[in-house]
């Protein structure tokens, strides 16, 4: 899509920017997820829509979506129609919070993939998204508060009912690392955990692990779920014996495409 008009402090020069719109629906009612980078970072916005008399579908946010830096996006209008030449055309009207900006864009073209192609993969693949810390228990660091946003990267390979992969969370201390995870998965649900891993680069989390990560796939191919990340001190001497658990809820977790 191309940005045709921008008013506000967050505006930069007009730019062509990619997006992904996943849509499922029956009759004249549709639900969707709009993935794009209004702040230069990925955001996925839940939208719902209804068919228009001319064959177009008019979507709007069901609630505002949160970016990693806590800024929000509200899609006030996304009108799209299939097009034999461009694939998809339409227009977009949205509001960005933070330094509030109103942005209008034009959908100029789009490629197409059926969701069924992803459904066959189950949870296998590469995923990225955001979660929110709902609760912290134990010796909680001052910088790990309820309401903080966590970035997630997840790769999974599924073989029968077994699954393994790697996960990276922005709440890891120091340089980004990957934790090996393993567990079970069906076509639409999974449950993972990791081993306890000691990371020498960490100043504070001597041992860390993913205690649980339970999720399910929705009909738009996204992962919903919750996970518990834990950090334990390896030395049982104060002040080195810190131990805490972060309960997190996935805000959105979508397949890399």
């Amino acid at each position, binding site marked *: 899509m191309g940005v045709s008009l921008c008013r506000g402090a967050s505006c930069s020069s007009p730019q062509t920017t990619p997006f992904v719109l996943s849509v499922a*629906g029956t009759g004249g009612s549709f639900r969707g997820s709009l993935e794009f980078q209004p702040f230069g970072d990925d955001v996925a916005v839940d939208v719902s829509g209804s068919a228009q008399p001319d064959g177009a579908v008019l979507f709007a946010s069901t609630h505002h979506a949160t970016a990693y830096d806590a800024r929000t996006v509200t899609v006030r209008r996304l009108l799209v129609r299939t097009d034999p030449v461009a694939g998809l055309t339409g227009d977009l009207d949205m509001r960005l919070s933070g330094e509030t900006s109103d942005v209008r864009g034009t959908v100029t073209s789009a490629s197409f993939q059926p969701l069924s192609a992803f459904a066959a993969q189950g949870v296998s693949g590469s995923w990225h998204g955001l979660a929110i810390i709902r609760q912290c228990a134990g010796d909680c660091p001052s910088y790990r508060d309820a309401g903080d946003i966590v970035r997630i990267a997840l*790769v999974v390979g599924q073989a029968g009912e077994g699954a393994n992969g790697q996960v990276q969370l922005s709440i890891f201390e120091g340089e980004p690392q990957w934790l090996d995870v393993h567990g079970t998965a069906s076509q639409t649900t999974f449950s993972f955990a990791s081993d306890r891993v000691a990371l020498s680069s960490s100043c504070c989390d001597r041992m860390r692990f993913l205690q649980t990560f339970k999720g399910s796939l929705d009909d738009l191919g996204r992962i919903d779920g919750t996970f518990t990340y834990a950090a334990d001190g390896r030395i049982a001497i104060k002040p080195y014996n810190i131990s805490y658990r972060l309960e997190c809820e996935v805000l959105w977790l979508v397949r890399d495409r």
Partner: protein
Amino acid sequence: MAGPRSIAVVTLGLILAACGSNSPTGPAAPNRALTTVAGLWRGVFAPAACTGDEAVCGNGGPDAFALQLTPDGAGVVQIDISQLYSCPSDPAPVSADVIARADGGTTRISGRSPRLDVEVDLTDAAPLQGTFRYTANVLWDLTQSTPCATVTKQGQILSASRTATISPGTFAGRWRGWIARTQCSGNCEDSDDVLKTGAVELEISQAGGHVSGSFNGWEFAGDVAGGKLTATGRVRYMVPAYPCHQQFDSNQVCVLDLDLSATVDALGRLHGTLTYHLEGAAYPGNRPYVEDASADLTGLVRWP
């Protein structure tokens, strides 16, 4: 869009491509094994061992890959090396043209380019399973004569799926790769506001014979005819005392005229040339400059 159905729409075509590769020797004859694995795959390598650059290996993460094979065994492999912070400016996956050869129950895919020496042994195509080994040179930027990092990794395919994207045009998508200046006159420096580090981020939206997009942030529009893209971009910053004012607009681009022409080859790589005229005020010193240059795009790839 009325009626009961379930769809997904994506802006990015996923036709596979490679960059700066040397073609290996000719393809093998088509056989059943190669026909089975033919197509465009995207997936993840899970390295079990990594040697070379400690910062890259220390990441320990998965590497996304794309593999495109034709039924006669010709193809291309692209790998996005997990890099941590050691080579942050490398924008494109490393890639190499490859040849697939079926041998008993295994299909070996191998190839070599200046940036990638790769072997993949497939044991199954439903789902895609097998092992890999590759040595990759990760670039810092085009002005460096040696790679930022060299790593050798081996392990197994963690996951992979065949991709079937219906794209509105040959050029539509998000392209990554490198640009190399071939000619320059005027006030030329090693880098400028078009070349930057030599890394290219090219976004193209295509609707039939019309294209629009951005090249390293500079907008353009044009046409596609006879399999060739021709586009232009014109920038005029409306600063006082146009052209560039020496008092306050240091490091400012005032005028940019760019002309882009490009084609896409059989394996989905974008090749082309960019010519541009640039006027601005340099930093430091507010020195006005004028530059006319040409550059080659050699094998940009769609990624991700």
